[in-house]
């Protein structure tokens, strides 16, 4: 859906209207402020919705307009409470669609992968309830199977919430294992791999660390630094793993559908679609070129670097090294 701020689409308005009717019918009468709070809308929005409601209806054979909502204007004028007199068409909250139910159920299964929610018994009850979203219930059309992730997630989350630093052991892509201080900002679960976004005081940058390469997390008493707080603000509206930096290099890559996931995590500068079986050419911003070695080689040809030449060299050398055919003078590899 296009993200038009402060404007509801016709479908969203309809959704709001039928919910509003159901809510008032369930509660009997309700103060407009409570309705607004419950639905997460402004008072003004509720008022306008009510004015749409009271004119909705039909015209009968004799030409009389039949307005099903006999809204209690007196009550509203005196007390700002909403109520209907003599209304019996929609008597309760509206059900949800199969797609809506499936989307929410998949979201619930996903939540269960988070340690905080792993023991929520109510998740199962809810999934059962959602499967009866329609009287002729059918199995969900979307499912999310949950996996497992590394340990220490709870501890890292504690650090994030408390705004403190951690010490941990981390093994980088070159296999170098070091103890380091990190200032955790956010946990980014991505399917089977989870990442910790953290401010690294040594390199003075915000980076993503794979949780499955992190060991021995230990909470420290030091608070997050001012620089880390700035970094936290910077990622607030950015859910991609790789946030472009000032010194990034523009790299043109060509990806087949099999490797779309590669570019999804980078901020795209430009995308052009070719008609050839979904292959697209994308310019991405890469902070540390040697990362491309394993990122591109992974896909075994479904992702290709077009330019710059230096990046192509990195990929070729990495692949050759993996084949054991030649040992590059300087092993390419990333920091993280």
């Amino acid at each position, binding site marked *: 859906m296009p993200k038009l701020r402060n*404007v509801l689409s016709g*479908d969203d308005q*309809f959704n*709001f*209207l039928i*919910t509003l009717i159901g809510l008032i019918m369930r509660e009997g009468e309700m103060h407009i402020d409570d309705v607004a709070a*419950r*639905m*997460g809308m402004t008072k003004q929005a509720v008022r306008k919705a009510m004015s749409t409601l009271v*004119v*909705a*209806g*039909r015209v009968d054979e004799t030409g009389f307009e039949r307005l099903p909502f006999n809204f209690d204007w007196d009550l509203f004028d005196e007390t700002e409470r909403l109520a209907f007199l003599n209304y019996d068409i*929609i*008597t*309760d*909250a*509206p*059900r*949800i*669609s*199969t797609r*809506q*139910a499936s*989307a*929410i*159920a*998949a979201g*619930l299964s996903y*939540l269960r992968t*988070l340690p905080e929610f792993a023991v929520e018994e109510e998740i199962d009850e*809810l999934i059962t309830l959602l499967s009866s979203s*329609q*009287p002729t219930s059918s*199995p969900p*059309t*979307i*499912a999310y*199977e949950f996996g497992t992730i590394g340990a220490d997630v709870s501890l890292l*989350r504690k650090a994030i*919430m408390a705004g403190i630093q951690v010490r941990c052991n981390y*093994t980088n892509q070159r296999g170098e*294992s070091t103890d380091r201080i990190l200032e955790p900002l*956010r946990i980014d679960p991505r399917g089977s*791999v989870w990442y910790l976004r953290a401010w690294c005081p040594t390199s003075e940058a915000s980076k993503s660390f794979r949780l*499955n390469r992190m*060991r021995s997390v230990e909470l420290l008493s030091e608070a997050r630094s001012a620089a880390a707080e700035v970094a936290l603000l910077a990622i607030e509206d950015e*859910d991609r793993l790789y946030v472009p930096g000032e010194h990034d290099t523009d790299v043109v890559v060509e990806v087949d559908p*099999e490797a779309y996931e590669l570019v999804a995590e980078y901020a795209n500068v430009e995308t052009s679609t070719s008609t050839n079986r979904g292959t697209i050419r994308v310019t991405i911003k890469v902070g540390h070129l040697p990362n491309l070695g394993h990122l591109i*080689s*992974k*896909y*075994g040809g479904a992702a*290709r670097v077009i330019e710059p030449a230096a990046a*192509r060299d990195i990929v*070729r050398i*990495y*692949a050759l*090294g*993996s084949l054991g055919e030649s040992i590059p003078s300087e092993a390419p590899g990333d920091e993280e």
Partner: protein
Amino acid sequence: MADQDQASNWQPEGDDSAERLLSLTLTLLSNPYGFTKEELFKSVRGYRMMIESGAKVDALNKKFERDKTALKEMGVQVVTFTRNSDMEDNQQSRYFIPADTFVWPKGTNLTPNQLRLLELAAKVWARASFSTEASRAVMRLKALGMPSDGLDLAGFAPRILTNEPGILQLEEAARDGLEVTFEYRTPDHQVTTRVVQPWQVRHVSGQWLLMCWDVGRNDIRNFMLKRIVSRISETGNKFNTATSAQLEEATRRLNEFTDGNVAVLKVEPKTEAWVHYELEHHTGPDGEVTLNFMDLHLLAEQIREFGPTVTVVSPPELAEVIRRGLEKVVNLHA
């Protein structure tokens, strides 16, 4: 998005589709004997206003079809039927909405904690159309209770990502029982045209799969969404949507398949892969790890990321796939 921080104002768009849809819904709910299209055109406010401003029947018909689709998309079931009592030559379709399909059964309630969980579940959808649907569902469910503010996702940015363009269409096909066809590229680059009856879109081991009945192969098949390389189109055939038993059977077979796929890898100590496969406290043969896999080529992708620090002990096909992929990378970057 019906979310407080996203859209909390009511600013009707140019058309008044919300009001028309509401009037249509109320009318269709009001009479179990239903209405003919002509009756609806005369009585539903939005249509009546169109007639008054001189709209042609064609335009009305089109609008009505669009509205029916819109209602269906939002889970409102408009039932079409013809009355037996109507004269043979006067059989007209009648439309109505069964009241029990529209509202929850009496006594359906949600606890504050449940409602909170539902809200959070809606938030995990990222950059995908399902997020709109999930938010709309949450709005409706708010009529059933008041969310608590205990649990939250602070510190996490959980995201269900869908990079596959066809996912919505396949979910819709599974929901509505629409047979579809697409081109599928197997890992060895054979492109075949498949005709399938989608059952479920499922996220397993980091991948979106389509569980379905493959009409051509006359058997259950799973397709990886990222290997679909054409547009998805409907064949026009309909089928009965999947039963729980069918889905269980498909899941059982997938699990059986995964259990039967065993790989043995040798991992160089003190490397990224060594940590990845949690070999620090391993007691088996030196640096060897045994694992099950769902798809040989996905496993090959994972191992290629580790470069030369992982060697395949078995199966030989895995080593071969890894090697061929790397050779391809070398050639493509020569």
